[in-house]
């Protein structure tokens, strides 16, 4: 689904969003007022430039538009894979972006991430999974690694992994699995303003978001151990 179609669907009241390389930035009108739109498109590989570009814009929103909601659009095939990126501590720039998203939350900005295309590993961790809540479009692809590559690395036959994937959401790619495990709040059939506005309004009413993904995963039957294990450590 192309970006223009997604933006028109989410923001029929109007948007002023531009694309810089693969970085998406701008603002849009919603029933809740103006929101900031930030993210990536065309399955961007997240390197220093995109990470710092997004981080700087998050800091700008915090400084210039206190409390304005932020909608992150996620389409990333993961982190950029190069020696030059690692030489300058790419994990540090991704951590910096994550801290900026976290700062916005603490300063009272409601945030929501929508996976529009791909969401993979480091790229997903640095902003998509840092928002208050994460949603995905129905055709989104969410994963750490595809099953064939996983079979190669783990030396477990591909057929066996496929078989197990039918029973368990723990390792196989798919937004549905992340929904069951509590990391994706809901899957949207299409980019629609009504869904976005209801989600933002719900989050604003609920107030500052605590991380409730473990509890969601337990309720939905996709992640049985995490919540109880963490609670046992707290009370040990």
């Amino acid at each position, binding site marked *: 689904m192309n970006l223009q179609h997604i933006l028109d669907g989410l923001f029929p009241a109007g948007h002023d969003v531009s694309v810089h390389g693969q970085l998406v930035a701008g603002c849009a009108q919603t029933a809740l007022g103006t929101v900031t739109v930030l993210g990536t498109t065309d399955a961007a590989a997240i390197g*220093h430039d995109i990470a*710092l570009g997004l981080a*700087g814009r998050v*800091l700008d929103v915090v400084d210039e538009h206190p409390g304005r909601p932020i909608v992150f659009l996620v389409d990333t095939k993961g*982190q950029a*894979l*190069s*020696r*030059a*990126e*690692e*030489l*300058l*501590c*790419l*994990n540090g720039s*991704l*951590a*910096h972006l*994550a*801290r900026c998203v*976290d*700062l916005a939350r*603490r300063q009272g900005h409601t945030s929501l991430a929508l996976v529009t295309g791909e969401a993979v*590993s*480091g790229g*997903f*961790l*640095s902003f998509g*999974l*840092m928002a208050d809540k994460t949603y995905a479009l129905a055709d989104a692809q969410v*994963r*750490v*690694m595809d099953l064939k590559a*996983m079979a190669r690395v*783990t030396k477990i036959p591909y057929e*066996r992994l496929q078989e*197990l994937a039918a029973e368990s*959401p*723990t*390792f*196989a790619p798919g937004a549905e699995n*992340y929904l069951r*495990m*509590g*990391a994706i709040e809901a899957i949207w059939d299409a980019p629609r303003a009504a869904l976005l506005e209801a989600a933002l309004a719900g989050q604003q009413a609920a107030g500052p978001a605590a*991380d409730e*993904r*473990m509890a969601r*995963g337990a309720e939905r039957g996709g*992640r049985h*151990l*995490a*919540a109880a*294990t*963490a*609670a*046992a*450590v*707290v009370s040990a």
Partner: protein
Amino acid sequence: MNAPVANKLVLRRSYFEASARARVAAVLDAGSFREFLPPEASEPSPHLAVLDIPGAFDDGVIVGAASLGGRPVLVIAQEGQFMGGAVGEIHGAKIVGLLRRAVQDKPAAVIFMADSGGVRLHEANAGLIAISEVMRAVLDTRAAGVPVIALVGGSCGAFGGMGIVSRLCSAIVMSEEGRLALSGPEVIETVAGVEEFDSKDRALVWRVTGGKHRYLTGDCAELVEDDAASFRDGAIALLSGWQKPMPASSTLRAEQARLTERRQRFAGLRDGLDVWQALGVAEPRQIPLMDRDSLVALKKGLPA
């Protein structure tokens, strides 16, 4: 009386080679550690069992309470010798639980001995989500006024999501042997080719991801010898001088400026040698040969 030098030689214990339990015993005050969910009170990962892979009762991470230099601390120690310290559902949840406990108990610090390649592929989704939860929990802990100190010097380094987590901590203490990055050299070589990154070239791997490089570029706070006692001393020194951090908004503005400037200044460089030269090091080729104290002195003398 013992000669101090001989004494040091006798007591020296490689942090790199030690198990997580040996690190816990050697870094923290002797006898002070109390483990939460010890192996006898835990179950190994059922996600590994279903794949016929032997599990570990602690799932590759030890969490508990201890004291460090007399201060109460909470402790996380990843076991690199079990599945490369990789994060699965239980492993991650133990870390999140420990950090949430720190928000309640307000210890003097959380000591996070990272030794991990990142997400455990056998539990890929659970591992990725757990790392995201650890990221938020680290920031919650810091926001509650409890510093989180990462120690990076294990055989698996801190890669993938654990590389991100380490950089979210308040400070990193690292040895020359420690490695800190996002993608491992093997992954980059597999995807982009051996010309991009030769993962068998150990010297190159250290010049790109190793402790001396991260120290010179300001990505870790302290450089220590590969010795449990040195990690202990480094962590104690950091906590002794600990000052309440500036508000996150001004800290992050400064970090944004530092990272942006660095990105421009070192654009196109692909080897630590080139970065060190650009930093003003007169003889970059000597860096890998220098001992820790000489390197720390050299860094102090570099132009700001």
